[in-house]
């Protein structure tokens, strides 16, 4: 009878596993579960506070959470913070705008035309592997320390995910749907408008999500090296002034801004890609 028991045991594990996987699916996540995401960060802040009050870390290495908060509240009250914030957000916004636009253009061209893909894709594929910091000296040389160097760098970061996802999305369009279009003699432009672009839209949005994420990485690179304003500048200024509260606070601000923009793009994604649950 051992075999039967083994079999039942295996089935039970299988059922538990499927229940577990099903439970973890994104569709099952409602509001109360999302609130759970705040529990661990909250505990970390409490732990952080305790580590400082117990003297494990010296305040000049790691400031207490309340110190960080009061520093930034003061900077907000004096108006200094808003200048840095708005400059950084503006850079990211323009970088994303240009990067995503270029990504859409190149992604569409290489997705639709095999020749363009053969000509451009190997180059772009190897360019995407260049680390963001490696571009900085070159861009400083070309554009000086003005805004254009920073925006170009951010645009470059936002470009690649959009380009790659859109291009593969268009190339990977369902052959079965193209046959339908062929049977019913749908014109070229109509095919693009009604079939190809909608089919690639989910990929485009995945690309934009990645692009916006990378834009936040690249803005730090740009502002750390050559800026007199912005969150990245604040970060390096904190190091120069030996103010860990400013450094930690800037990092946290970057995290929340990145998070907020991602939530925004996700909302856009859900709205535009309404057909796939």
């Amino acid at each position, binding site marked *: 009878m051992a075999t039967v028991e083994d079999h039942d045991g295996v089935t039970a594990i299988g059922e538990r596993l499927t229940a577990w996987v099903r439970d973890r699916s994104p569709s099952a996540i409602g509001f109360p579960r999302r609130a759970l995401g705040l529990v661990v960060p909250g505990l970390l802040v409490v732990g952080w506070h305790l580590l400082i009050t117990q003297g494990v870390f010296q305040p000049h290495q790691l400031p207490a959470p309340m110190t960080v908060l009061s520093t930034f509240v003061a900077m907000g009250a004096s108006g200094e913070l808003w200048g840095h914030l708005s400059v950084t957000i503006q850079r990211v916004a323009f970088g994303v705008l240009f990067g995503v636009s270029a990504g859409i253009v190149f992604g569409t061209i290489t997705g639709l035309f095999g020749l363009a893909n053969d000509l451009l894709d190997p180059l772009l594929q190897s360019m995407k592997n260049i680390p963001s910091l490696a571009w900085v000296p070159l861009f400083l040389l070309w554009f000086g320390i003005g805004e254009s160097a920073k925006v170009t760098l951010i645009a470059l970061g936002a470009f690649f995910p959009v380009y790659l996802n859109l291009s593969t999305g268009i190339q990977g369009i369902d052959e079965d749907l193209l046959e339908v279009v062929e049977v*019913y003699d749908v014109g070229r432009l109509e095919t693009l408008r009604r079939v190809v672009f*909608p089919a690639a839209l989910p990929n485009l949005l995945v690309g934009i999500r990645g692009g916006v994420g990378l834009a936040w990485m690249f803005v730090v690179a740009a502002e750390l090296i050559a800026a007199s304003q912005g969150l990245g500048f604040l970060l390096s200024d904190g190091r120069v002034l030996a103010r860990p509260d400013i450094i930690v606070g800037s990092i946290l601000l970057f995290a929340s801004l990145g998070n907020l923009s991602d939530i925004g793009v996700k909302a856009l994604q859900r709205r535009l890609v309404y057909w796939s649950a």
Partner: protein
Amino acid sequence: MIETRSLTKTYDDTVALREVDFAADDGEFVSVVGPSGCGKSTLLRVLAGLESGFDGTASIDGTPVNAGGSDDVGVVFQDPRLLPWATVRENVRIGFDESVTDDRIDDLIDRVGLDGFEMALPEELSGGMAQRVALARGLAYGPQALLLDEPFSALDALTKVEQQEFLLDVRDDIDATVVLVTHDVEEAVYLADRVVVLGGQPGTVVADVEVPLDRPRDRTDERLIETRERVTDALGV
């Protein structure tokens, strides 16, 4: 009139169809049956204009079929192949000219029994309903020929019978020539005026069986069962 003469279709090294002479008269309903891999779907794809490069001729109403397809052909595939982002109405519109009015589309949607579902998305439809949207799309334009590639094979038994009756109803309203490819002998005999049996590899026509019954037919009619046996014999089952 749908016609192929010594149609031979080769994919790389494999010959899918060899010297197939096939014909369907105007308004005739012809089923094509055969075992898997006999090239019956290939025959339909050639007629639909989805295969480029074949030997012999294939024509619909005297016009040679070329890759790119003919305006006069409606095709229903095994799966509905609907655009998931488009409403039922927009999916049916694909079969029309861009300038068609909503009213004309909605008439057609009504005719396939989906009145009220014009604005539904494919994901909201059952398998049978989705296949009817595909049929409506195939009937747009009032095609001379309706080509059906195992359109009911993915449906459950009950829905399948429903859809078969439905196809016969719709067919009464139009006078298209229908070619139905299927591996289901019962379905082939019940629906068609004539059953063409393909066999072998590469596929050739091995039998051509008339179904000597008027419609409506009784599924348990003796003559239907006899015809079914003749088809089954030809298949060598």
